[in-house]
C-alpha cells in the first residue's frame, strides 16, 4: 500500500495516536500572523494553514546550540561524544521545507559525514502537508520547483474536500498507517480529486520570476559585478535574520563551554552566519568579506551558484523566509528580477 485516505473527522484521532507514541511538533500560531514549529498535544493546537514558520524545521536537525562532546581535563584523552537524541514526529511540513531538509541531508552526508546530524535525522519522522494555494506573496516555490511533493517524507497529506490523501513513502510511514487503524483505501473519487487539484496547482503556481530553474546559476555568474550588489550592501544591516531563517543555511561555529569546576566542560556547535562581520575574519585580522555588499552577494551565490556547482541543485527552496524577515526590505525575488533586468 503506497496511498491511503484519512477522513477529516479522524485527523484528531491520528494526531492523538502520534502523541501517544512520541513527541509531536507542528506549526503553532504566534502573534501577528507568525508561526513556529513547537510541541503539541492535540489537533486543536496545530495550525493547518500557516505561512512558513519563523525558523524552519532545521532547528530539530541541527539546533541553534547543541553539544558535540564532553571533556574532562583530568582525563584529557577521554572525550565523550554527545548526541542529544529524541524521537520526534514533525507534522505538517510544507514541500519547501521538505526541500530544505533534503538540502541539509546532502551537505551533512558529504565527506566527511556529520555523525551528529545523521544520528538525529534517524530519529525524526516527517509528515508532510501540501499547500493547495500560495501561502503569501513572498513565496517563490514554483521558480525553485518545490511546490509539489518530491519525497523526503514518511507520510504526506493532501487536503481534499472531506479527507486527506496520504502518500506513504517509507516503512515507518506504512507502520503508522497500519498501527493506527484510522485509514481507508483510496477511492476513485479521491484519485480524481487529487488529479484535479494537481492540475489546478500547475496553473496557479508558475515561476514567480521570469527565469527557468536551470538558467539561474548562469544569471548569477554573469552579474557578479552588478550594481545590484552595492545597492543591497547599502540597505543590509548585517542582522543575520536572512541566514538564521533560511532552511538551507547550515554554517556554524564551535565553542567550548567550561563548567564551574573549570575541569569539565562541553564543546558546542552554535549557528553562525556569513552576514556576521566576524564570520570571514581570520588570524591576523584579515576579513575576506569585509563589505556588506560582499556578504550579501556571497549569500545569494551560495544559494544559486556555488552549491549548484558542487551538488547539482539550487539551495534556495523559495520559502520566502529571508524576504519576510528582512526589515531593510531586501527581497529575494526582486533581487533576481533586478539582476535579470540589468543583464538585459
Amino acid at each position: 500500500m503506497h496511498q491511503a485516505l484519512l477522513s477529516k473527522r479522524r485527523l484528531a484521532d491520528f494526531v492523538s495516536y502520534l502523541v501517544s507514541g512520541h513527541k509531536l511538533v507542528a506549526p503553532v500560531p504566534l502573534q501577528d500572523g507568525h508561526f513556529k514549529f513547537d510541541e503539541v498535544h492535540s489537533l486543536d493546537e496545530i495550525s493547518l494553514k500557516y505561512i512558513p514558520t519563523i525558523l524552519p524545521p532545521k532547528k530539530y536537525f541541527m539546533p541553534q546550540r547543541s553539544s558535540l562532546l564532553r571533556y574532562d581535563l583530568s582525563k584529557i584523552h577521554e572525550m565523550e561524544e554527545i548526541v542529544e537524541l529524541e524521537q520526534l514526529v514533525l507534522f505538517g511540513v510544507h514541500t519547501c521545507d521538505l526541500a530544505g531538509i533534503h538540502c541539509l541531508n546532502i551537505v551533512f552526508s558529504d565527506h566527511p559525514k556529520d555523525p551528529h546530524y545523521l544520528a538525529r535525522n534517524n530519529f525524526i519522522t516527517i509528515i508532510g502537508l501540501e499547500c493547495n494555494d500560495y501561502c503569501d506573496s513572498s513565496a517563490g516555490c514554483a521558480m525553485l520547483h518545490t511546490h509539489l511533493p518530491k519525497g523526503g517524507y514518511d507520510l504526506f497529506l493532501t487536503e481534499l474536500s472531506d479527507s486527506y490523501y496520504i502518500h506513504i513513502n517509507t516503512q515507518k510511514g506504512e507502520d503508522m498507517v497500519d498501527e493506527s487503524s484510522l485509514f481507508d483505501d483510496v477511492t476513485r473519487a479521491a484519485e480524481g480529486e487529487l488529479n484535479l487539484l494537481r492540475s489546478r496547482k500547475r496553473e496557479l503556481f508558475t515561476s514567480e520570476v521570469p527565469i527557468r530553474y536551470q538558467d539561474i546559476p548562469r544569471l548569477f555568474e554573469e552579474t557578479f559585478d552588478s550594481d545590484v550588489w552595492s545597492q543591497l550592501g547599502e540597505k543590509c544591516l548585517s542582522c543575520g535574520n536572512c541566514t538564521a531563517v533560511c532552511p538551507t543555511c547550515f554554517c556554524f561555529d564551535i565553542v567550548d563551554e567550561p563548567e564551574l569546576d573549570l575541569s569539565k566542560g562541553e564543546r558546542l556547535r552554535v549557528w553562525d552566519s556569513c552576514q556576521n562581520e566576524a564570520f570571514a575574519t581570520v588570524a591576523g585580522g584579515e576579513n575576506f568579506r569585509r563589505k556588506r555588499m560582499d556578504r550579501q552577494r556571497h549569500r545569494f551565490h551560495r544559494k544559486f551558484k556555488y552549491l549548484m556547482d558542487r551538488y547539482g541543485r539550487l539551495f534556495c527552496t523559495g520559502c520566502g523566509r529571508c524576504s519576510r524577515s528582512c526589515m531593510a526590505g531586501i527581497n529575494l525575488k526582486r533581487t533576481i528580477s533586478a539582476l535579470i533586468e540589468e543583464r538585459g
Partner: protein
Amino acid sequence: MTRPKVAFFDFSCCEGCQLQVANIGETLLDILNLVELVEFREVMSEKWSGRYTVTFAEGSINNEESAQKLRMLRDRSDILVAYGSCAATGGVIGMQNRISRDNLISTVYGDQWGGEETRTVRAIHQVVKVDYTLYGCPINPAEFLSLLKAILCGISWRASDNAVCVECKFNENVCMYDRGATCLGPITRGGCNSWCVNNGNVCYGCRGMVDNPNRAGAEDVLLTHGLKPELIAAKMEMYTGALEAGNVK
C-alpha cells in the same frame, strides 16, 4: 592553591550591574569556591591592600577623583574588566555630554546645586586600558559567568559583535517590526540572548552598536517606520553619548 583575588568597584552608575552578581543565587557559592572575593561593597565590608587578579569596574568616569582611583585600580589589577554599560560605553550618563552644564544643573537640581564637580563623562576604556568588556544595562549574568570561567581557564573570550537579532532569531521571537514597534536590535551588539525581546520589550540599544554598524541603513529603516530623525538620533545615542568624548590616558 591560592584562589584568584577578585574585586568589584563602582564609579558613576546605579550599581545595578553588581546587584546582578549579588543576586545570582546558588551559583555564587560555586563561584566562591573558585575565587577569593576580596572587595565588593554591596556584599562585604572587608578591604584589600594587595594585588587584584581580576577587577570588575562598574560605572563611568566623570571627574578627576574617579579617574585617579581608576588608574590606581588599573595599576593594581592583572586583569581589568569594564563592567556594564556605564563602564563600557558611558551608558545613559553619557547623555549629559550633549547638554550645557548650566542647563543640566538647573534642570536636575534647580537652585539646590552644591554638589561635586562633574565633567565630561567617559567610558572606562577612554581613561585606562581595559582587558575585557561586559556590555549591558544591566550585564547579563550568563555572560558574566562565561567571561569569568574563560579568564580562570585561560581561554580566549571576546564580547559578541553580532547584532541582537542573531540571538533573537535563535529564540524565534516574532520580530518587533512585525508587531508594529521599532527596535534597535539590528544594529545593537548582542550577547544578551535578546533578553528584552524575549520578555516582550523592544531593544533599546543598551550594549551600544556593533563595531561596524550600518547606521545610515538603520536610520532609513526607522524613517520608513515613521520615526522622526531627532528621535532616531536620540534612541541611537541614548547609551553611547560618552563615546564621542576623546580619550584621556
